[in-house]
């Protein structure tokens, strides 16, 4: 019994040390954003600042000549709409695919989908740029939203869930004369409430982060989201370290809060969907 206790304490200490290493950079980011400049050099490692200042956050009010709210609004608008489009498109698609996978063309489409996800998407951006340009969507939020709507993780979450819905339920509804849209909207979708929630959360987290398409499709800073604004601030020659840390905190904090509040769902979703970004 005593041996077990010592082992338990050792395991706890190990886990606590590892956890500290994992969260340290994030705590350091928050703490650095709150320190006055003179303390940053002198007390690099102090996580709880001796003196707290919000000066760095105040200077974020205007970034590269645009008000902070422009970037914030872009983030919320682009991410919000891309989540809605993405969840609608992938849930309908996964439902149809699951309902009759043998229909002509269905298998081909699924393979096309997998192939697109394997392509290094950084390199896809040149031709995407051309396609978006030809569609007349360059520099528009619509172009960004549509590109962000295609994600593997949402599709696989729905596909996995729908495959577990008993066929008998769907078939009996079919015999009762229900139409496909009715079966989806009044029988299957209500059963899938929890999957919808998970898909919404994951899509929000992933799309909030998805800065590269925004950078490529934008033609001016007017469509930049917060992470792109951070990239922009960090690549400037004149370095303002606390300001960079403050913007990093602003970019991360919403996601950290959402994650801490919904961690069980989010972790399970990532584990089930597997594929990431």
């Amino acid at each position, binding site marked *: 019994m005593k041996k077990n206790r010592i082992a*338990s304490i050792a*395991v706890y200490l190990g*886990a606590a040390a*590892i*956890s500290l290493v*994992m*969260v*340290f*950079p*994030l705590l350091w*980011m928050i703490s650095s954003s709150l320190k006055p400049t003179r303390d*940053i050099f002198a007390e*690099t*490692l102090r996580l709880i600042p001796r003196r707290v200042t919000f000066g760095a956050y105040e200077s974020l009010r205007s970034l590269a000549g645009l008000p902070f709210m422009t970037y914030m609004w872009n983030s919320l608008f682009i991410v919000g709409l891309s989540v809605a489009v993405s969840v*609608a*498109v992938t849930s*309908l*698609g996964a439902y*149809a*695919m699951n*309902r*009759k996978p043998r*229909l*002509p063309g269905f298998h081909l*489409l699924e393979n*096309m989908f997998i*192939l*697109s996800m*394997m*392509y*290094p998407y*950084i*390199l*896809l951006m*040149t*031709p*995407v740029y051309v*396609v978006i340009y030809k569609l007349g969507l360059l520099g528009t939020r619509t172009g960004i939203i549509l590109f962000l709507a*295609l994600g593997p993780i949402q599709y696989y979450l729905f596909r996995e869930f729908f495959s577990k819905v008993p066929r008998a339920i769907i078939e009996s509804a079919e015999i009762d004369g229900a*139409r*496909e*849209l009715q079966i*989806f909207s009044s029988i299957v979708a209500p059963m899938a409430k929890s999957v919808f929630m998970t898909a919404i959360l994951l899509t929000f987290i992933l799309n909030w*982060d998805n*800065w590269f398409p925004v950078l490529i499709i934008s033609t001016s800073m007017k469509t930049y989201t917060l992470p792109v604004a*951070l*990239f922009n601030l*960090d690549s400037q020659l004149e370095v303002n*370290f606390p300001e*960079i840390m403050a913007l*990093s905190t602003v*970019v*991360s904090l919403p*996601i*950290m809060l959402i*994650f801490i509040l919904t*961690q069980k769902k*989010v972790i399970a979703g*990532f*584990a089930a969907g597997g594929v990431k970004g």
Partner: protein
Amino acid sequence: MNATFRAIKDNLVLYFFLFPMFLLVLVFGIIPIAGSILMSLTKSSTSLSNSPIFVGLANFKTIFADSYFIDSFRITLEFTAISVPLNLLVALLLALLLGSKLIGRGGVVFKLCIFLPVVVPIMATAVVWKWMYNTNYGAVNAILKLVHLPAFGGLSSTKTVMPALVLVELWKHVGLYTIIFLTNLQLIDKEMYEAAYIDGAGWMARTLRITLPELAPAFSLNAMYALIQFLKTFAVALVTTQGGPNFASNFVSYYAYSKFKLGDYGEAAAMGTVLFVAVIILTLLTRRISRSDDLERGMA
């Protein structure tokens, strides 16, 4: 033909359901990939024009004669060859730790901490790590100084930049692989352990004879995800090193991006195609190996 037509006609609704997804896959997946491969066959200065000039495999010849590209390919493969096993090993150890009976309810908090870097936006984590390694402001050297260890060159020295990036990427991604191991760990039948325990098998024997073989599918899944992830390494290089110092972290993705920025579209697309082929070959190889593994187990 008639049967096909009939099948489509009878299930028109399902085709409508699938249509938006088809459209997105086509417009943002298949057309750009085809476009990218076609672009790799064109003269850069005409790639984006309405009548591109096709030059056959000239761009591929150019990039394979470019020693910077060969180096960048080698760097990418080396980085992947180190990162995949390292991430899987650390993830496995973390999963065993989190799955341990000894940890009990505290496990929730530890799991949260280990997974947190996976969800925090990559832009923020890359920027923060860039500054963590900074020799003036950074925490890394401050810690080393505190414990009287020699300073770490971090991202500024050609010798240390790769280890530094391997660590950043480990920190960022290991949580995902850990969770996949942990999920599979919790699916293992508890009775197998009890039987082994009664037979007198110790912790080590139980881990080697039950846990690891039972985790084989999780291994191949993780290996595949990690392979795709690390072959495509880009954001961290763009934010922290811009391929430097002296091209030491010039990953294929980053090199192709910098070619794109210079207007060398043909070469950039050729590099993309080469990387795409590498990703497909290595992924298929991983699947083949893991499948034969499963096959052997099934036959035993």
